[in-house]
């Protein structure tokens, strides 16, 4: 693990982010949604570490609270997509035949639409909001996990130990649960980390477009949106949430990369 700098760097960034989320539940320098118009657009100071925004809200507090939103949307969207998608992928690999073909073509079909377009459609149907953002990102993740778990499970099904398990009289569902799922877990964990980064970017993009988180709930994407009008007077307002998003996504990607290498025994042997 010490030999893997990207795993360590990614882990540190992700832990910092998680610490920020935990901290935000207990304490923020100011109430994140408290509007204080007379003190708007202040530069960084001892009282307001990162200054205040166009409505006089404390940027540091907003960033902390925004981390909470990105974690919530990420966990919900990736969690739903990963669980449901993996279940479908495992089902397809175990059943084969027409059901498998149907599931995989449905996944292909959903890939044909950019996730953002799906989100626009959902927002048009059900109105913008956190739930819409989670549903749109979750739907995209579902297809991703269905494809990946189907491919990985297909490879496990062709291994000798599955044949041996069948020779013991185990049926396909027992084999799926006891042999296939544990053997594809590493792939899924790595993918979940990377999808988490994608989900955070997507949440920021949707909120920036006004399709995601509604005011007054803080979100890094909405902070970017609001900073846009004051880009010349207070460019730092765009820099802070931008940097937060970038660091968070970078951290998750590095962590995913490191995990992939660490969990892959073939690569581990090469390193040794």
């Amino acid at each position, binding site marked *: 693990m010490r030999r893997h700098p990207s795993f360590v760097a990614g882990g540190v960034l992700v832990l910092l982010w998680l610490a920020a989320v935990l901290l935000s539940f207990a304490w923020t320098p100011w109430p994140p949604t408290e509007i204080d118009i007379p003190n708007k657009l202040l530069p960084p100071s001892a009282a307001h570490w990162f200054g205040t925004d166009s409505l006089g809200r404390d940027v540091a507090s907003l960033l902390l609270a925004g981390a909470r939103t990105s974690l919530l949307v990420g966990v919900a969207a990736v969690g739903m997509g990963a669980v449901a998608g993996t279940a479908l992928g495992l089902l397809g690999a175990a059943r084969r035949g027409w059901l498998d073909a149907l599931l995989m073509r449905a996944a292909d079909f959903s890939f044909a639409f950019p996730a953002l377009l799906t989100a626009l459609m959902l927002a048009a149907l059900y109105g913008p909001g956190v739930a819409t953002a989670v549903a749109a990102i979750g739907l995209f993740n579902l297809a991703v996990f269905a494809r990946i778990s189907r491919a990985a499970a297909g490879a496990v099904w062709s291994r000798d*130990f599955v*044949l041996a398990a069948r*020779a013991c*009289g*185990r049926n396909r569902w027992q084999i799926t649960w*006891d042999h296939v799922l544990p053997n594809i877990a590493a792939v899924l964990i790595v993918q979940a980390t990377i999808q988490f980064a994608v989900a955070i970017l997507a949440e920021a993009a949707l909120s920036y477009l006004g399709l995601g988180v509604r005011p007054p709930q803080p979100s890094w994407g909405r902070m970017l949106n609001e900073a846009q009008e004051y880009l010349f007077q207070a460019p730092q307002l765009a820099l802070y949430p931008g940097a937060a998003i970038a660091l968070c996504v970078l951290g998750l990607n590095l962590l995913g990369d490191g995990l992939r290498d660490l969990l892959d025994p073939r690569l581990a042997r090469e390193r040794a």
Partner: protein
Amino acid sequence: MTALLAVTDLRVALPSARGAVEAVCGVDLRIERGETLGLIGESGCGKSMTALAVMGLLPEGAQVRGSIRFDGQELVGLDDAAMCSLRGRRIAMVFQEPMTALDPLQPLWKLVSASLRVHRGLDARSARAEALRLLERVRLPQAAQRLDARVHQLSGGQRQRVMIAAALACGPELLIADEPTTALDATLQREILGLLDQLVREDGMGLLLISHDLAATARSVARVKVMYGGTVVEEGPTAAVFATPAHPYTRGLVAARPRVGAPRGTALATIPGRVPALGDLPAGCPFSDRCGWVVEDCHAALPPTVDCGEARAARCIRLGDISL
């Protein structure tokens, strides 16, 4: 009394790029309880496919014709649920590669007790106890300390012991061992085969041993069937078949064995040519393109099985001309 296993005119066709090819073309087998039968031949002669057909574990798209009766019950066309209840409980199989046929992520006790948990519904506690008993029975060193070990912590021979223990868990009536010693070195081969032999005798199981190793087979089974190109070309009591092979292919096989004590520089006898791919078998006798005694009639049709006395038989039309 019905035979434990009676296979009649088994034909297995596998899908390939050039359409279905027959990997097994009309194999007959009969194994009684407590009987041992060897199936020998080169890679690709159909011996493993015969075993997988009995287990109902053929690759997807394979077509099976003929009859496989296990204790009177027809297995060809049996649904998967019914096959699942037989596999591991009444018919068990030991695979050739202990490196790949054991799940690397599961602890030994789970691997060994898999069929017990399926068929007897044992809880984890009694499954562990049974696993320990089985591992001690196959003489795995330090079995008690290794119940939670993973496969990568074992040597090749130990892995094969684990696989045998798993196969024996439910006390099957028929054990199919597909090249159980191929991945092991010579001393371990003897040990594992000796162990199998002992366990089979203790439990009164029927054993179908599949191998390409003549010496290993000769020690372990009472009767042997020699396969070539998907058919059984010769069969009989093991000692007699190896002492005086009748079929030209068996003669070639026996002659090609290295002999300890042969003068230095003696070239190994070989069978000319190579095993043809499944789709490219010659017409008539599958061995006709490599046989030294081939005549025109050999290409006409698959030779019938000729009884040679002493419970022996061979598929060759020239048995009378090529003296034993």
